[in-house]
Structures are given as C-alpha cells and as structure tokens.
C-alpha cells in the first residue's frame, strides 16, 4: 500500500505552509498515535482511579501493565522484526495471499510461546487468582497485538493501526473505570477487554484486505525466507530499550516491591514515561522523511541500476539518496532538538502542572535528551534495514543493549545526579555509530549493489 507516502507527498506538494503543517501533524498522529494512546490511556486509568481505588491497587495495576508491555515487547522483539521482513518480501513479490495465513501462524507461535510462559507465571506472581489469571491472559493478548501492529505497519496501514488503538484504548479506559469497584482485578479486566478488541480489530483489517482460503501457514519460519540475524537484532534492540528500566526495578536501593515479584522504581519510571511523550515531533519528521524523500530516492537508485542507466547516473542517484538521508537525519535532529529545548525551559512549570515533584526535574531533562536520541537511533536503524545491512544492525543493537546495561549500572554507582545518563549516552553513542556505518555503506552503495549481489 503506497497510500501513506502518496498522501504525505500530496500534502507536501501543495507548497503551502498549511499543507506542510497538515502533513507533519498527520505524520505525527500516525507515527506516534499508538505510543501516545497507550501511555495516556494507561496513565489516564491510573489518574482517574485515584481516590476511588486504594492507591496501592492503582499502583499495582500501573506496574503490572508496565511489566506486561516490557515483557511482551521484549518477548516478541525477535519475531516482530523477522515478521516485518517476511511481510515486506511478500508485498514485494506480490504474494499477498500468503499474508493472512502467516499472520495466523505468527499469532499461533506467539500465543503458544507466551502461553507456555504464562503457566509458571500464574504460580510465581502474587495477588489474587483473578489478578494473576488476568495478567497472564493480557501477556498473551499484548504479545499477539505487537505482531499485528508490525504487520499493518510494514504494509504502511498506519491509519488502521491508529484507528484500532483509538477504539481499543477507549474500551480499555471505559472498561477499567466501570470495573473500578473490583480493585486491581477490575482495572486489569477492563484494560484486557480493550486490548482484546484492539487485537481483533487489527486482525480483521488484515483479513478483510487479504482474503485467502488457507487458514494458517508458517512460511515466515522457512529457512529460505527467515533471517535469524533479524530475530536476534529485534530481541536485543527491545531488550536494550528496557534494560535500564529493568536494572532500576531490580536494584533494591532504587526500587520497591509493588506486587510480589514485581518491583518498581518511582524515581526512574515517571520521568522517562513522561519524556516519551515528547518524541511526537521527531517521529513525525522521521515518518515524513522515510515515506517521501528517502523512499523515492531509494527506489530511484535501484531503478537506475535495473534499467541499465550509465554509471554516472547511478552515482548521481546514490548521491541524492545520501543527501536524502543526511537531510532527514539533520531535520530530525533540528526538530527534536527544538522540542527538547522548549520542554527543558518549560519543564519546571510542566512538572508542577501534572503535580510531580521538582525532584524529578534533573532526571526528566536527561531523559528528554535520551528519548530524542532514541528517535535518531530508530531513524538510523531504519536506513540500515532499507540497505539490508543485517550484520551492522545486529552489531549495533547488541552494542546498544550492552552499553545501556553497563552505563546504567555505572550511573547507579555514581549516584542519583547521574541517573538517566546511561540511557541517554547509550542511545547517543549507538546513533552516532549507526550514522558512521550508514555513511560508509552509502558511500559504497553501488559497489555493494554489484559486488555483493545475491
């Protein structure tokens, strides 16, 4: 579906400020919508329950959902990336009938995997049986949802994703609020109901777009189509994103027990989840750039090769592609940089407005820089995925994961003023390293296109 890039280009081609604003707002909504909706939705449930439900139970709900997010994202990280590649290849080869049965296959694999994990968890977790059963069920549903999300995203159906999230989280919030009297279990139950609707909505979108007569297929695990390195990359990338949080949660001096084995780090968690809301502008720029200039220049380069253009033209196309990457990266840098500056200046009043202690200001500021770098890192990874640099992305995600773990532990030893620097530094270093790799790869793009042809 070329739709999204086409729509964005149409808006941009109007050459008016209004068109430009609409393009970026649109891109912001579709690129960050799910992200913002889930943070706002879950926090909203929490805020609206304060006073109606005992504080501890609200916290138990929030921490449980956070763990569910972390576990499902890390657990499916490998499959997400592998499946994204599989779907992209299917679309490229016009093998659309394969899509739905393989989604069913991937969901089956995910459900079986998450389910196998869920059985022992029922016994390991704390809380009432209802809470524990709801938790493990949500783990299965959330894990499956991520697979559906990456499928729709790699088919560029961002609007379908955002729409499903809107409906799903509306039901989650409404459900949780109406079941408030039941405490933690009620909040979880309502949340789960919305998540189930979200999953079904996305699957039905796929089913409607790609009807097929096969029920289930596992082609995405086929040796000839599957890329093990991508699975490892996805796992390490997602683990890298969460590892600093995990370290803070499980270090006794920075965390506390919330519900049995589930611990939370109040000091670390609140600033970073707030900071994540700031990435909307950067994500919007990223999407616009990837979907318009970069995608067009990328296609044009390979078209020039395939159509037998002269070498000079191929090199000119390579230069234009390089320029598109440079411009995209610098634009993300600028836009997100301005966003961070504005938020830094406004931070004291902002924290006051949401009723958060000024003690968090320092960490919030560092986290703003950290998540800005994470957007950059995402953009760089995306360029490298386009260039099919699987070995480089694997090395980079491993570097990121290791750096984030090591530097986070180091900052814990250095003391509270240094909290957050581990995350910010590791994203910054990884982005920089990724940029160097991408630049080198772009420099030798025509060489590799011909001499590494598979």
């Amino acid at each position, binding site marked *: 579906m070329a739709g999204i890039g086409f729509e964005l280009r149409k808006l941009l081609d109007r050459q008016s400020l209004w068109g430009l604003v609409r393009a970026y707002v649109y891109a912001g909504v579709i690129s960050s919508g799910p992200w913002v909706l889930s943070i706002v939705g879950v926090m909203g449930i929490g805020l609206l329950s304060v006073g109606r439900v005992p504080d501890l139970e609200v916290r138990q709900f929030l921490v449980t959902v956070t763990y569910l997010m972390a576990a499902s994202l890390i657990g499916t990280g490998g499959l997400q990336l592998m499946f994204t590649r599989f779907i992209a290849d299917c679309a490229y080869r016009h093998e659309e009938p394969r899509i739905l049965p393989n989604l069913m296959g991937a969901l089956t694999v995910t459900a079986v995997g998450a389910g196998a994990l869920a059985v022992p968890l029922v016994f390991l977790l704390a809380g009432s049986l209802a809470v524990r059963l709801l938790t493990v069920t949500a783990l299965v549903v959330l894990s499956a949802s991520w697979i559906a999300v990456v499928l729709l995203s790699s088919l560029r159906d961002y609007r379908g994703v955002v729409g499903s999230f809107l409906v799903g989280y509306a039901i989650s919030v409404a459900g949780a609020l109406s079941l408030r009297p039941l405490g933690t279990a009620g909040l979880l139950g309502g949340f789960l109901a919305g998540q189930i609707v979200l999953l079904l909505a996305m699957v039905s979108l796929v089913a409607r777009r790609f009807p097929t007569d096969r029920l289930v297929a596992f082609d995405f695990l086929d040796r000839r189509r599957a890329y093990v390195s991508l699975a490892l990359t996805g796992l390490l990338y997602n683990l890298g994103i969460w590892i600093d949080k995990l370290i803070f949660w499980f270090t006794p001096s920075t965390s506390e027990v919330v519900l049995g084995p589930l611990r939370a780090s109040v000091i670390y968690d609140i600033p970073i989840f707030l900071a994540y809301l700031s990435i909307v502008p950067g994500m919007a720029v990223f999407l616009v750039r990837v979907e318009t200039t970069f995608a067009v220049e990328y296609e044009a380069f390979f078209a020039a090769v395939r159509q*037998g253009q*002269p070498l*000079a033209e191929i090199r000119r196309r390579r230069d234009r592609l390089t320029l598109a990457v440079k411009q995209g990266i610098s634009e993300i840098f600028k836009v997100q940089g301005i966003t961070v500056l504005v938020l830094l200046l406004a931070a004291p009043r902002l924290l006051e407005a949401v009723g958060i202690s000024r003690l968090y200001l320092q960490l919030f500021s560092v986290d703003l820089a950290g998540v800005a770098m994470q957007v950059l890192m995402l953009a760089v990874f995306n360029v490298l995925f386009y260039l099919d640099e699987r070995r480089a992305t694997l090395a980079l995600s491993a570097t990121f994961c290791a750096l984030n773990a090591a530097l986070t532990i180091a900052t814990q030893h250095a003391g509270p003023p240094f909290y957050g620097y581990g995350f910010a530094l590791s994203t910054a270093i990884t982005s920089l390293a990724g940029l160097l790799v991408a630049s080198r790869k772009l420099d030798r793009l025509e060489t590799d296109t011909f001499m*590494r042809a598979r």
Partner: protein
Amino acid sequence: MSAADGLPRLEAGQSADVGLLLEGTYPFVSGGVSAWVHELIAGFPELSFGVCFLGATPEMYGGLKYRLPDNVVHVEVHHLMAGEGWARLPRRRARRGTPRAGTFEGLHEAMRTRSAPAPAVVDALAALDEPGGLSLHDFLHDDATFEALCEEYDARHAGESFLDFFWTARTMHLPLFKLAAIARALPRFRIVHAVSTGYAGALGALVRRRTDARFVLTEHGIYTKERAIDLAHAGWIQGSALRRLWIQFFEALGRMAYDAADPIVSLYEGNRLRQIADGAPPQRTRIIANGIDLERFAAGRREPSQGPPPVAGLIGRVVPIKDIKTFVRAMQEVVAVMPEAQGWIVGPEDEDARYAEECRALVRTLGLGDAVRFLGYRPAEQVLPKLGVAVLTSISEALPLFVLEAFAAGVPVVSSDVGCCRELIEGRPDEEGDPAGSAGAVTGIAAPEETARAILRLLRDGEAWSQARRIGRVRVHGLYGRERMLDGYREVYGTALKEAHGGHRLRAS
C-alpha cells in the same frame, strides 16, 4: 577406468598421447567437425586419446552422439557458462597481499591493440584462483575489481548501460577462471590438440605454458568469424559496443592460441590467409584438407541411367549459420516450376530450438508443408543416395564434409560461395590430378532465386547432372580421401611427439 557416467577417465599420474580440446562438438554434438574428430581418432589406433569437452551449460547437450573408439582413454566434460560454484561462493574475506588489479590488464591491452597476449599475461591467466593469482572470490567481490571495472567503463564505455557492461565483463572473464582450473587438473598429454581457437585454443595455450606438452591447433572454420555471426543473433548482448568487446575478446584468445601453437593447421588456402591476417605466424601455418572414407559412400551410389531423383537435400544442423531459411525459400521457387520436387532438411534441431521453430513456421507460411520435410539427424550415407542434388546455403563454412560425401555418393552440389566450396565444386586447376569442370553450382549467399535456378538445372538436365556427378567423384577420390588427411596428421603428430620426447626433457625433470 570408468567413472559413474560411464566415460573413460585417466587416474592421477596416468597420461595419454593426444589430448583433444574440443569446444561444443565431439562427442556430444553431431556435425562436420565431430565427424572429422571421430575419423581422426579412429585413424590412429596406435595412439591413445583424451577428450576435454568444453560446453556452455549442461542442459544444452544430450548424451554421446558417437561410440567412443577403444583408444579414447579419457573424457572430461566442462561447462564454462554454468553457474555452479559462483553463486554459492563463501563470502570469506579476500586473501590479503595477492596481486589483484592488473591481472586482466594485459589481456585488455591485447584486445585493444590487436596483439598477442604476452607470456606474462598468459602466466597470469594460468594462475587464476591459485595462491599468488587473482582469486575468484576477489574477482567477484573485491573492491579493487569493481574500481578497475569502473575505470575501464569511464574510460571507454561511459554513457552505456552500466548493468550490461558489468555483466558482460563478468560473463567474459569468469570462464577464464574455469579454464585455468581445467588446465591445472588436466591429465598429462604429450600433445594437446585444440580443434578451434576460442576457449579451446586458449586452454591449449595455458597448457602449453604450464607443461611440456606440444600444442597443435586445427581450425575448421574461423572461430572469431563464427562467433561474430553468433553474436549478431544473440539477443542478450545489448548494443554494438559490447558486441565489439566480445569480438575483441575472442580475437585476443585466438592470438593467444596462434602464439603458442605449432603447427597451425587450416583446411584450405583461404583460411590459412585469414589466420595469418588474424595474427598467426605464417611459417607455422599449414594446410591439411579434410578427407572422408570414400568406401562408405560408394556403396549406395545410384546408377547414372536412372537419372536424378527430384529431391534437393540439405544436410546440416538447423542453426542460423546454415541459413536454412534461404533453402526453404529456394524450394518455394523450385516447387513452383517442378511440383513433384521435394526439399529435405536433414540434421538435428535441438541446438537452437527457436531458430528451428522459425524455419518450420516459414515452411508453413509459404505453404510448403508437403514439399519441404524436416527429417532430423540421419546418417549421411543413408540419405545421400536418395538425393538428386545436395544443397548448402550456409553463410559460413570451411571445408564442409557434406560436400565431399555428396561427391563420393555421386550427388552434385549446389553451394553458397563460402569457405572453399568454390574450390571444391569448380576445382583447383593448379593441383595435380584435379579434373577440370564443375561438380554442381556455386551461388551467392542468401540468394534463394539463384539457388533455385541451379537446383532446377541439375534436376531437369540429365546430361548436366551426369557430368557434374562424374567430376565430383573424380575430384574427391583424387584430393579428399581420408588417407590423404591422415597422412598429414601422421606427420604433424610424429614431429610433435619427437619434440615432446627430445628437446624438452629438461623442462619435464
């Protein structure tokens, strides 16, 4: 020694007298050259022969087309254009410190300057993919190769399709890696005998450079000329610049063979002069005409009193070089005058299936379904007695055996003016024992009307027919018998074997 495929193989350390280097012919493709090779092997039962067959891709060839004589002790089969071994090459890092750039520069220089590749160039080619030489991996994946390619492109091909240039360069150089490997693994032969230039001749030059084997070269047609005709028909080569590159490449391989071979044998004077023009040293050239087994064809000869059967036959592979379509068009004119006349096309159609289908389509279009028949391969001695006139419409030939066989079987020949066909039909007045007079008719190339007129004259004029077949028979007996040809090669092999035994002991030890 027998391998799994049933072909005889020499084991390591064993050797044979003559190693025949054959490109796309014996024993897997039937035709004039293959028949000649078969005769040659059978003519020297006292020598042991090895056959090194060089083909393009495996699916182009079927099984053996000849029963191998007992003195063939070794057959090895290679396919130079087959992709196996390249696609799945491990992407290991290149060996550092190997001389990379420049390996092919000498060859390219020779291509441009129309000179023979220097000995150092041949050495570099022989060392391909060997420690110290350019590795196949480096050629396929190393940056230096790409840079050299880009330099060449920018210098001489800027503006052309780079994709086509790149694949042309790859396709052109890759077989050289295989040739080098074949040369290294080849059993020891006292003589290597290439029966064309091109890849076979280049292989001979590599073997000559690496071992103490003597190198004999025989050319039936002129390889570079035939490749040029093939290339003109090849749809996969885009643009004349790349076609010219291919021709230069084959010419350079040809000069490499001429530079290393002694003697350089051709079938007749015209081709000898052409070889000299293409770079063969005149003092090493010599002519040994084809010869055939006269007895084989004398048996079925018709009585002259019966007159000519109304059949014009073309014996040859159904490929563009034989210009079958001109024969079909000529038959249209013949049938218009002589409705009972028949045209037979006798030869295998599997080599260029598309061309064969085009020919059949032409027959249908011209409404000749009853008059023109495709008979497939048939032994010449069975077909010839049934022909009134033998026809050859080729655009390139050397000394076609088919003409000699027709003479021996008492069939006049109408042939296009290619190779030494005029010499065969109209005679060589300077040669002793040659009867004056025409054994048929010589026509222009791609001249259906002229061909038709000549066919009609011979089929309808009994007097002219009898006269022509008598002259043909006398001429073939006088000049083109098999013994005469074998005597020539007896001398060539004898000299080479003596040299292989004598002067080169030092190199062998």
